[in-house]
């Protein structure tokens, strides 16, 4: 009897078939092996006993906002030093007039001044099981709406098949599942079942399963399915099935190996949520509680660990200042922190330098007309093998005059490097011309665009930290633990790269450790 493939073996095969590219590996992780469960359960910090410890928080992204919000409620005093001109970190939503502070390429977002014309440059979606960030959306009353990651009316476009023409995802998936199910059913009903690991009764159930999965006829053949909609009819006359696509073409496409599995990744699976009016609604809802604690344009120059605290030198409006905390929660991106003078233990510094960060670019385009609605698309993602990789359609502003769509989202380093090297105008032009492969009339609708190249963004220099198993084993525990009274926080110190959940949980990990130290301190006093 043949061995049943383990999940890990399946993963290996999938990665091999997909050519081992980073994107496909990412998709492959969707089989559920690598997804950490969210263990977040909200329980407020204890009121800190006795003297109110002062906590210095570096950076003003989600991890910092969560920390300041919780610590002040528990009686600590906090101050937040933020190097950039704004609060939110990579939670960045741009609208009319906003600065996109890319080093060497400052852009001002020139979208029309309309409330529905915004673009989420960083995080854009909230998985239901990210209990930490969802807790704060609930607690702070951040209005949420559905986010659509998967829409069968969107397109897949691949130069190697269907003459490069875009194909509706629904058509593609129905046909490839039909044809593959037919082959599986045929091989099972001939000699295949001799090797089957299950008994006769179960075996029949499996054959039936395959039939249902592919929408096969009673002869176990696939000749098209109404699942992809009808070519004609269906209202007053019986529906005519669409002609099926060529099986060889379906297989030639890489869609099945990566993008088709995307919605099976736990963190990307429907149904997802997003804040109404832009992801920065989360930041705006934190602000009333913490705004007075924040100093913007405060660039840290030195971090010094002391025995009983942490001292920081920073420059604010050209003046050097010093701040001191009993504790320091530091969300400065590891790569930038490595260039800031410090007296971290050698081991801590060495391991911090091992952290590698992803490169990622996103395009936001303003369309003069919501052309996608005329194609039965009201949200979701189209996929292409062009460098732009994806086009997202907004789930908000339906039937309004204009809309902002995502004109490209690339995370392969070579692709991002190609875009990064271009002038801002050339980036937009390239992304539009690639988008024309998905929507032939694309160009006539796109009025304006911005590009956000995260590894060049001032005070960011990257996106999520990419923890390889080797780097994780070597460095994570050391960096998650405090160095004296200094704690690294942010999504960088969680295995959820670029997810706000990582930021929330990293903050809690540090705060619980501080709470324990404070409890121990007050216990020894009494």
């Amino acid at each position, binding site marked *: 009897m043949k061995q049943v493939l383990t999940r890990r073996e399946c993963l290996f095969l999938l990665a091999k078939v997909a050519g081992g590219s980073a994107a496909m590996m990412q998709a492959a992780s969707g089989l559920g092996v690598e997804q950490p469960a969210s263990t977040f359960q909200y329980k407020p910090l204890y009121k800190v006993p006795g003297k109110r410890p002062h906590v210095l928080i570096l950076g003003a992204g989600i991890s910092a906002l969560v920390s300041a919000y919780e610590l002040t409620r528990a009686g600590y005093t906090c101050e937040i030093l933020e190097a950039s001109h704004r609060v939110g970190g990579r939670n960045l939503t741009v609208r009319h007039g906003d600065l996109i502070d890319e*080093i060497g390429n400052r852009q001002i977002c020139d979208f029309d001044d309309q409330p529905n014309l915004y673009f989420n440059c960083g995080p854009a979606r909230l998985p239901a099981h990210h209990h930490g960030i969802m807790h704060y959306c609930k607690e702070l009353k951040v209005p949420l709406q559905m986010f659509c990651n998967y829409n069968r009316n969107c397109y897949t476009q691949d130069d190697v098949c269907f003459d490069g023409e875009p194909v509706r995802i629904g058509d593609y998936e129905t046909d490839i599942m039909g044809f593959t199910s037919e082959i599986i059913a045929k091989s099972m009903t001939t000699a295949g079942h001799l090797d089957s690991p299950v008994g006769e009764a179960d075996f029949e159930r499996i054959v039936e399963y395959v039939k249902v999965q592919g929408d096969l006829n009673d002869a176990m053949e696939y000749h098209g399915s109404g699942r992809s909609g009808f070519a004609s009819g269906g209202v007053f006359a019986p529906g005519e099935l669409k002609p099926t696509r060529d099986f060889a073409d379906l297989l030639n496409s890489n869609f099945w190996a990566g993008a088709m599995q995307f919605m099976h990744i736990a963190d990307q699976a429907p149904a997802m949520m997003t804040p109404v009016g832009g992801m920065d609604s989360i930041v705006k809802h934190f602000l009333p509680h913490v705004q007075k604690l924040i100093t913007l344009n405060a660039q840290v120059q*030195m971090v010094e660990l002391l025995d009983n605290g942490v001292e920081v030198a920073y*420059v604010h409006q*050209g003046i050097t200042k010093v701040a001191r905390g009993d504790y320091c929660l530091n969300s400065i991106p590891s790569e930038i922190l490595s260039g800031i*003078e410090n007296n971290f233990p050698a081991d801590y510094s060495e391991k911090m330098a091992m952290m590698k960060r992803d490169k990622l670019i996103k395009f936001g385009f303003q369309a003069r007309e919501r052309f996608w609605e005329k194609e039965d698309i009201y949200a979701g993602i189209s996929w292409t093998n062009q460098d732009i990789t994806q086009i997202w359609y907004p789930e908000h502003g339906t039937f309004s005059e204009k809309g902002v769509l995502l004109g490209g989202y690339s995370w392969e380093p070579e692709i991002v490097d190609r875009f990064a090297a271009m002038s801002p105008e050339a980036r937009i032009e390239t992304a539009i011309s690639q988008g024309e492969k998905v929507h032939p009339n694309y160009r006539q609708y796109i009025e304006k665009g911005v590009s956000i190249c995260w590894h060049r963004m001032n005070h960011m220099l990257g996106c999520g930290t990419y923890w390889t198993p080797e780097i994780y084993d070597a460095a994570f525990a050391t960096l998650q633990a405090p160095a004296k009274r200094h704690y690294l926080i942010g999504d960088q110190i969680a295995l959820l790269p670029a997810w706000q959940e990582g930021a929330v949980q990293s903050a809690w990990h540090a705060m619980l450790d501080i709470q324990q130290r404070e409890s121990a301190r007050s216990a020894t006093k009494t």
Partner: protein
Amino acid sequence: MRLPTLIFLVTSLCSTLALAASNTSGLPSCVVCHGAGVQGNIVVQAPNLSILPAWYITAQLEAYQHNWRGEDASLADAKDMRAVALALSDKEREQVLEFISAVTPQSAKPSLMGDISHGQQLFSSCSACHGDVAQGNEALKAPPLAGQNDWYIVSQLKAYQANQRGYAKKDSNGNMMRSSVSLLGSEQDILDVASYLNSIEISKE
């Protein structure tokens, strides 16, 4: 507390640093990649600028602007720098030079384990241009190398060898260096020289 040396300078320079060239804190954007004291940051592959004189930085910013550096598709970090060089106005460039000139030079942290004494021997054939202790020679347009990041010396020597730097016809100084790298034969030689240069006690100007 130990106040970093650069901080005094920042305070004195702030009035001259225009917002356009700088972060809104008053510091030039250089420090985000090159480090708070522009002493170099291996993690983002940004070299030590604190040891470099204004004339050399000017020449290299121009080299980026002319596409004499960073042309090769594999040099993503150099392309990042090229974008900055292209975006700087003349006034901003002056402000950056002023800032870097005022920063106290410091040696980069060593990251490689080359044979320093062998590197020193090999360097004797470089010293005619770069100076006895790699202090640089403005007349010959040879930059100081003492205290430079060892990994950066390695990457640049390899870039010259691979025709990724010094290739442009008009880049006469780059041409000169490109033809000189043949003096260093093996990978080990390059490593040794880099470790030696990193280890030299620095003097600026």
